[in-house]
């Protein structure tokens, strides 16, 4: 996993609540057996005017001029500003894969759906939660100033605006450590092999029917 330390990035505002995983990456793209290449199909149904199918030349497809991420001023954005309950719906990890592949490194919203939130951390994508009033303010500032950038510092747990306002966000210590260092979850867990085996031995005595 790519470590996340500090990102200074152009901000793109996606001003709708309850953006679901079907919107982030429509199901026809879930047929891929790979982890990469989902970026061109992030928000596919909003982003293009035609119906997207796997294998299409996305560069040749008609873009929806009304979709905010298609505006010239947001090209190259790496911070996505969103509204409450972002990422609701399915458990598909293709949603963070698509956002990451698109170029986003951090998300800022008042709240996220649980599974999606969890999945982001496994993929080097930092989902930041800030109070709704602050997110609202960031939306206004982003819309008002083309080229608006934010600095996200994971070690310090801060988001800094161009005029120097600093917002502190919460993040679980363990998740933070893994993301900062790009650590592989499985090898860390396998350090506990002895404990897992001891649990199994104990459980086998209490509940042997689980081990047949």
């Amino acid at each position, binding site marked *: 996993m790519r470590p996340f330390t500090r990102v200074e990035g152009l901000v793109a505002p996606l001003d709708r609540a309850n953006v679901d995983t079907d919107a982030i990456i*429509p199901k026809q793209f879930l047929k891929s*057996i790979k982890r990469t290449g989902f970026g061109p199909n992030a928000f596919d149904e909003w982003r293009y005017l035609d119906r997207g199918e796997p294998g299409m030349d996305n560069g040749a497809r008609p873009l929806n001029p009304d979709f905010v991420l298609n505006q010239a001023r947001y090209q190259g954005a790496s911070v996505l500003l969103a509204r409450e309950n972002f990422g609701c719906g399915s458990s598909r990890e293709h949603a963070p894969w698509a956002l990451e592949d698109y170029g986003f490194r951090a998300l800022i919203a008042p709240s996220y759906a649980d599974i999606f939130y969890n999945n982001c951390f496994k993929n080097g994508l930092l989902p930041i939660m800030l109070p709704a009033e602050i997110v609202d303010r960031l939306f206004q500032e982003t819309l008002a100033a083309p080229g608006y950038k934010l600095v996200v510092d994971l070690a310090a747990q801060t988001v800094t605006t161009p005029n120097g306002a600093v917002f502190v966000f919460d993040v679980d210590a363990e998740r933070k450590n893994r993301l900062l260092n790009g650590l592989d979850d499985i090898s860390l*867990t396998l350090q506990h092999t002895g404990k897992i085996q001891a649990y199994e031995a104990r459980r086998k005595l209490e509940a042997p029917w689980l081990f047949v």
Partner: protein
Amino acid sequence: MQPRSLYDKLWDAHVVQEESDGTALLYIDRQLVHEVTSPQAFEGLKLADRKPWRLDTLLATPDHNVPTTARTAGNAGIVDPISRTQVETLDANCADFGITEFKIDDLRQGIVHVIGPEQGFTQPGMTLVCGDSHTSTHGAFGALAFGIGTSEVEHVLATQCLWMKKARAMQVLVDGALSPGITAKDIALAVIGQIGTAGGTGYAIEFAGSAIRALSMEGRMTLCNMAIEAGARAGMVAVDDKTVAYMRGRPYSPAGALWDQAVAYWRTLVSDADARFDSVVRLDAAAIKPQVTWGTSPEMVLPVDGCVPDPKDAPNPVKKSDWERALLYMGLSANMPISEIDVDKVFIGSCTNSRIEDLREAAAVVKGRSVASNIRLALVVPGSGLVKQQAEAEGLDKIFRAAGFEWREPGCSMCLAMNADRLEPGERCASTSNRNFEGRQGQGGRTHLVSPAMAAAAAVFGHFVDIREVM
């Protein structure tokens, strides 16, 4: 000892290791595997030269991509080459690692959340995961079951564990008696209507109360299935006689002396009398009417005798623009009575409502009637090969067919339209599935979530009707 909730008991029984910040390494008893969220996990295992920790805890089946028409050709019958590759990849991975798989032409194949309970693979007291958010379904058995992403699928395969923080506990208490014709689906939608799609975020929900005790296991599965639509990763119901009776004699159920030992343990899987919940939500079962969603989120739901809301009345500007966008997408106008909404297609199926009881409820409405002339397609997709076989033994297929329904092979089908079954742009569907998101059943498709009986009635009348008036 402090009184504990069912969730506390399930959690405590599975902690392998706890960190000082409350993060726990939780042991996972079972994992269900399907073709969509597993290929990258198996690839990860292979790249790192790892093997599944415990093969006996795994059961796989293809469900999302399988066609619902004849299965005789096996995988070769999957027309879309990308879908076929995904199913073939699952077959190859299961063969390589030695994982039990119910393949496309196996009678036991079906939607993961239908076959787990049906096989007795899902048992009370277990932790059970799957790379699918509707894994909450299995909580109906007094189990801790939740959906995970692909990285976690790989993590559980490799370590049999997951790192988790304990969720807060919510109790949804539904007391009283449901009116005739009102089902678990209506309870689920009414709960979501009340607390919203994020109302359960960060919680594990236990459904309790006399109305829940009165539900069959199928009904409890429907309810827990939709816990995720309320934002909760896990939904659960305490063990009682119905749970135990359901478990008896299933292929993976414990037998002999182990059965008695298991049942004695299962009986303890109830919340203690004064267990503490962080939040309690109450509903009066008698007041629940047949529910129909009108918008593009399951919380946009109303009783069938209601009218589509007017964005003018929205409680805040964000909701107002959500409602406006939803009305536009759904092609509905404000204040229109729900009962005047005509539908084009009807879908009875999905892990929410494709079990035998659901099919019986729908067939009871359809019997002796026929599908209305404005309906382009009415589909019944049983949840598994065994459900289909049972329904056929009861003659339900004949009832549906005689009325003009199509009777299909098991799978996810038009719940998310990864196979050939889908809505065309602008088409409106009465669906027994669980999500009415934009494009969920096909790009531009318009989904209204309802119970199986309500979907059957919409097929017969061509528009939504109050099931209580036509039974």
